[in-house]
């Protein structure tokens, strides 16, 4: 009744092409942005930011990045953890080498560096596909972690091999280091999330994105209709690497503050982000957010319910968590292989007809 195209007249091409053609979606989008920027920062405390919002925002960027590669371009990657590590270490080296430059630019440059590294490891995708490519990116994962553990230059020769984010400010307000305010770190990450999602959304609905999807759906057919597979695949790796690098940089500099590569960026991280986009929905920006929210929130909710409310032993809750997350992933793959994004799409479809479906 309320959620419908009818009556929403478009009088120009740009209006016809907009991301949210339905008014209620558009209003909702601006409302979410408004709340995220103007309301949430005032309601935050350290716990909410560090346990929920920062991981959610940062994993969302990683999921968007991986979704471009896997969901839109169809190139399976298990190297996300390694690429996040590139972003983190690039950011660390930049922060310590050029302390006068704003951290904001360091994060972006770290993303760029990761994009380049990602391209190098994406080159085999021109020859190999599917599972074989997954194995090649898995090699990237292990190689990068090994590299950052092995070469002391990357961690500035510190005795422990850890990297620690020094204090850096944006407009005089600390965003990294120990003395940060909750709202500052949140807003800093939010800016990157909104920008990433906006860029990703517009890339994927434009020419570039259509090329990626053509390659994903059938690479030979795409080549015949004039899509250059080299450019399409390499650009997907570059863009994906850029976003993943940004998320890695934020993960290290803003969220954790101190990182040990094997522990923070191990193979489990690659799988976690992959699960996010599978549960959220391949080939969907909304799905990246939904998947990240699901896998960040679920353990916290389970812990709060199990330990704080029901008073169960912590180890039992931790074990249950593994069981429940695993079970839910299987359940999702069986019931809704296209993820939360598809559920959302179906809901919207139903809403258009509601309450008179016939």
């Amino acid at each position, binding site marked *: 009744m309320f959620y419908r195209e009818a009556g929403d007249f478009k009088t120009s091409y740009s209006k016809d092409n907009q991301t949210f053609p339905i008014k209620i979606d558009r209003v909702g989008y601006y409302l979410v942005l408004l709340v995220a920027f103007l309301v949430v920062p005032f309601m935050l*405390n*350290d*716990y909410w930011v*560090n*346990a929920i919002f920062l*991981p959610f925002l940062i994993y969302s960027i990683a999921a968007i990045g991986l979704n471009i590669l896997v969901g839109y371009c169809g190139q399976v990657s298990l190297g996300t953890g390694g690429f996040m590590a590139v972003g983190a270490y690039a950011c660390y080296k930049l922060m310590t080498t050029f302390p006068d430059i704003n951290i904001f630019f360091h994060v972006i440059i770290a993303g760029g560096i990761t994009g380049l590294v990602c391209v190098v490891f994406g080159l085999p995708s021109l020859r190999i596909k599917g599972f074989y490519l997954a194995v090649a990116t898995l090699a990237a994962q292990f190689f990068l972690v090994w590299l950052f*553990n092995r070469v002391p230059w990357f961690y500035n020769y510190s*005795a*422990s*091999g*850890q990297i*620690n984010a*020094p*204090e850096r400010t944006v407009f005089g307000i600390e965003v990294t*280091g*120990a*003395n940060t305010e909750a709202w500052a770190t949140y807003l800093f990450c939010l800016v990157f999330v909104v920008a990433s999602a906006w860029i990703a959304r517009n890339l994927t609905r434009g020419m570039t994105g259509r090329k990626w999807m053509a390659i994903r759906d059938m690479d030979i057919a795409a080549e015949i209709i004039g899509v250059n597979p080299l450019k399409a695949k390499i650009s997907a790796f570059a863009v994906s690497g850029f976003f993943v690098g940004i998320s890695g940089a934020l993960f290290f500099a803003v*969220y*954790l*503050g*101190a*990182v*040990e590569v*094997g*522990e*923070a960026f*191990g193979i489990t991280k690659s799988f976690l982000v992959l699960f996010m986009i599978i549960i959220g929905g391949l080939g969907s920006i909304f799905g990246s957010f939904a998947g990240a929210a699901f896998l960040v*929130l679920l353990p*916290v*909710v389970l*812990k*709060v*319910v199990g*330990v*704080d*409310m029901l008073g169960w*032993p*912590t*180890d039992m*809750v*931790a*074990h249950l968590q*593994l069981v429940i997350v695993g079970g839910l992933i299987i359940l999702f793959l069986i019931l809704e292989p296209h993820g939360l994004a598809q559920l959302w799409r179906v809901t919207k479809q139903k809403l258009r007809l509601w309450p008179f479906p016939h």
Partner: protein
Amino acid sequence: MKKIFVTAIAGLMAASPVMADLVFPSLSYRTGPYAAGGIPFADGYTDYFTLLNERDGGIGGVKVSVPECETGYNTEKGVECYESTKGEGALVYQPLSTGITYQLIPKTTADDIPMHTMGYGRTSAANGDVFSHTFNYPGSYWNGASGGVNYLLETNGGDISGKKIALVYHNSAYGKEPIRTLEELQKKHGFELSLLPVDHPGQEQKSQWLQIRREKPDYVMMWGWGVMNQVAIQEAANIRFPMENFIGIWWSGAEHDVLPAGDKANGYKALTFHNVGRDFPVFADIQKYVVDAGKAAGAGDQVGNVLYNRGLYAAMLAAEAAKTAQEIHGTKDITASMMRDGMEALEITEEKMAALGMPNFGPSFSVSCENHGGPGLVGVTQWDASSKTWSLISDFKATDIDVIGALIAEDSGAYASENNIASNCN
């Protein structure tokens, strides 16, 4: 889903009210590849506070609460645990993880909550002038490295030049800590050091032990944790490396590390900074007030294990520091900031430990503003596979303070200049 979420938020709100108790959060790990070490430590830590509650009515008459939070030895979960418990009035954090320690050093300093990393964490935190809120008494990894080398010197009549020592270490911040010290000691004593990293979680060590078999080092030292220890000892047994020449750090010397290798593990040695076994009066009280009363933490089957004793020791030091803080500030309900003062003024004497039913359980020492690291006395224990017990074969002895002190000054100085930290003690 929505319902769950609403109830979850309601629960979160309900879980936050300020409690009047003294809160000692236990960031434990009872799951994952490091659980074998995490469980006994967490049990010992909790049991000691339960004992204080049941027997003495808390510390200075104020009840103690020990909220537990599962970290799984994972830094992300560690941060979440820290944030979720600090609002409850946490007095001191003991994360039992070097990775989490590195993360919490700046955070705890900013939040004015002390952290005690007993025998782990960042060694240079011993310099209290720089690390105002981090304590690692009574000993650190560098004491451990030096203590191990001293023990070898002692057994070799004071000369180990030309001997080959291999270090098998967990390839993480934790395992890398002793390398600098060992390299310095290598220069001083003229032994040959070879480094063999083992990646997390440490189940795969075939190539490292093949290398040991080929290079035939005289001694192997190990900085391992969790499942890595068991595998290493099993592999050492497989290549018939003489166990009495195999020395682990204190995190590689508990019952569960040696039991899987059975008789072959006989003679394996480990360093320690506290006593082993349950031959102390305090265990009778624990049996009476905690175990028999059905209030033991976990399964209650860890009492008297090496790591259980360490948890107990950590809790004892925390409780004594809280008492000291109560005396200094003349109030029963201390805050985290007062707790920090108490830790800095902590003095453990033989009489104090005897009065607590723990005679000769650890070294006697006192903490000062400059020295947060304690005396760094290191003893050696040995495993007897037939009686399945650890026994102290070398008493707590001093370590090479010249070498360690210089390294601590260097590393903490670098940290201070990197982070613009002003002197804490003046």
